[in-house]
């Protein structure tokens, strides 16, 4: 009997009535993962602990909707006692000694961690092919990428192994793989979710968020992981709210902006057609849609390259082979320890970004590049704020193409940035953004649409997304058949 294809309300009822136990869900999840082993979605499985936890829960009251449900965690979120590698050789044997804020939160809900998911090394990449452990495969076509960097989390959700996963998004790393694999992925407002225990890549951009198949499940998981955390200065003190509260409410009269850039020649025609068809549905439901120009949006990739590589070079200075991680065996002196450890420990993409970042922040360059980027980022954020005075949402495609082949060349260092051209502006302005499936291309690969709102308006995004989900009724099971 399968349960993880039911709605979480049904599962919750079954648990409450004691017709199933958490261990049934855990066993089913591991069976699914075993059957989908070739997808390479996981770096580490947490089987023993998950079974132990499920048994413990048998004697506890089912006190919330997420009780006993298995969840997959991106491998850059630290989990006490459970290996956390960031898909890097340099952290291959790293066992954290504390839990990230979000892990504490999901444990409070008695969710069960099933394993740590595959990703681009240190979340640097757009196809998860920079993983030290080999790339995950797209459940819709195993010869294609799942996107990145949260490729493993997207894969396991898309394949239906589990209902919940966490990812992280610095320049699109939740939304872009969500788009490529036909799932729902939310990057919350910067500051909405504590970054304590998220291994830092670009601290002014990183944000943890939920990845699920259904819109409502996504909102429910976001409910569980938010909150002020005094261990993260940038975590915002905002009033508690229920992110599902607007789901099902009418959208008559909402104002939506579509950036002309998002529908320009850089985007495949099939994707544009799919987005246009979705816009028609929104108009039919009373939305007012305008095509507009947004200043600075075309510069977002350049800003991202400077800010993300700069911050990465500084954040990754901590991997010195001294306190933790892989270390050179017989260094001559301390300088040799740094140089050799980092030469062997980091992969190509990471080295490239650290070197460019170090250069951009060195001496006078910090002023020429980094400060200039911060200044334009400020202009860009002001521009977005201006648009949100007039509009409720900005929408458009999540990606310019659908998922491409795993075998496509990796010799262009600019490619991983260009894949994220439509998702990066959201990180630059700290806004919340969600990607959801809205159709398929002629090769039956999923097409994703992005919904962006003003800071701290995630609930409104879920309102619009749930309407689209209800209207489209897509079959999102990659193996065909019933969901």
């Amino acid at each position: 009997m399968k349960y993880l294809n039911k709605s979480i309300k049904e599962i919750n009822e079954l648990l409450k009535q004691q017709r199933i136990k958490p261990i049934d869900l855990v066993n089913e999840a591991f069976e699914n993962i075993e059957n989908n082993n070739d997808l390479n979605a996981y770096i580490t499985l947490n089987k023993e602990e998950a079974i132990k936890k499920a048994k413990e829960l048998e004697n506890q009251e089912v006190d919330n909707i997420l009780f006993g449900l298995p969840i997959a965690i991106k491998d850059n979120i630290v989990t006490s006692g459970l290996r956390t590698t960031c898909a890097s050789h340099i952290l291959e044997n790293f066992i954290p000694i504390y839990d990230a804020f979000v892990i504490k939160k999901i444990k409070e809900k008695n969710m069960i961690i099933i394993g740590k998911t595959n990703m681009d090394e240190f979340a640097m990449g757009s196809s998860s092919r920079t993983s030290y452990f080999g790339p995950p495969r797209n459940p819709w076509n195993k010869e294609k990428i799942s996107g990145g960097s949260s490729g493993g989390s997207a894969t396991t959700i898309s394949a239906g192994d589990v209902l919940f996963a966490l990812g992280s998004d610095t320049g699109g790393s939740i939304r872009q793989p969500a788009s490529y694999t036909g799932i729902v992925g939310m990057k919350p407002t910067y500051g909405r979710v504590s970054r304590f225990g998220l291994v830092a890549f670009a601290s002014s951009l990183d944000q943890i968020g939920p990845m699920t198949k259904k819109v409502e499940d996504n909102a429910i998981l976001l409910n569980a992981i938010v909150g002020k955390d005094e261990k993260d200065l940038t975590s915002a003190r905002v009033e508690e709210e229920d992110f599902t509260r607007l789901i099902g409410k009418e959208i008559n009269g909402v104002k939506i902006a579509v950036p002309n850039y998002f529908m320009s020649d850089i985007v495949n025609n099939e994707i544009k057609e799919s987005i246009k068809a979705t816009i028609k549905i929104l108009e039919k439901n009373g939305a007012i849609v305008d095509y507009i120009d947004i200043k600075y949006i075309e510069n977002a990739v350049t800003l991202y390259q400077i800010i993300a590589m700069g911050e990465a070079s500084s954040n990754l200075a901590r991997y010195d082979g001294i306190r933790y991680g892989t270390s050179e065996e017989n260094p001559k002196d301390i300088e040799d320890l740094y140089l050799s450890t980092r030469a062997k420990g980091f992969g190509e993409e990471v080295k490239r970004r650290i070197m460019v970042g170090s250069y951009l922040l060195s001496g006078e360059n910090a002023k020429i590049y980094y400060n200039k980027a911060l200044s334009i980022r400020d202009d860009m954020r002001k521009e977005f704020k201006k648009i949100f005075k007039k509009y409720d949402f900005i929408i458009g495609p999540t990606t310019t193409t659908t998922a491409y082949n795993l075998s496509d060349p990796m010799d262009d260092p600019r490619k991983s940035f260009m894949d994220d051209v439509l998702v990066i502006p959201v990180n630059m302005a700290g806004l919340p953004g969600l990607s959801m499936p809205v159709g398929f291309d002629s090769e039956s690969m999923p097409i994703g649409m992005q919904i962006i709102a003003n800071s701290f308006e995630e609930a409104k995004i879920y309102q619009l997304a749930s309407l689209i989900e209800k209207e489209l009724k897509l079959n999102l099971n990659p193996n065909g058949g019933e969901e």
Partner: protein
Amino acid sequence: MKEKLTEEEVLHVAKLARIKLSKEEIEKYQIELKELLNDVEKINEVENFDDDILIACWEENTELRKDKPGQMLEPKEVLENAPRHSGNYISVPVVISGGEGA
């Protein structure tokens, strides 16, 4: 022929980044780093509206925590991840030697 950095330029950034490079890597990065640096040059074509900068997208509702001691990490647990340690200390190779320093 593709534009590229000189070998010395690549070695300079590799030193800043504390990464040892093989001969093959140096050749590869001469081209790849140049491509990325050409990209970031585009920032100078963008006119900024004013000189305000945005360090991170935080709102005004953030605050520093009170400066008081909280839960501490157990040295024994911390040392389990350290490649080399002796007693309650993490050990490192020679820091100051007769040769060229860092």
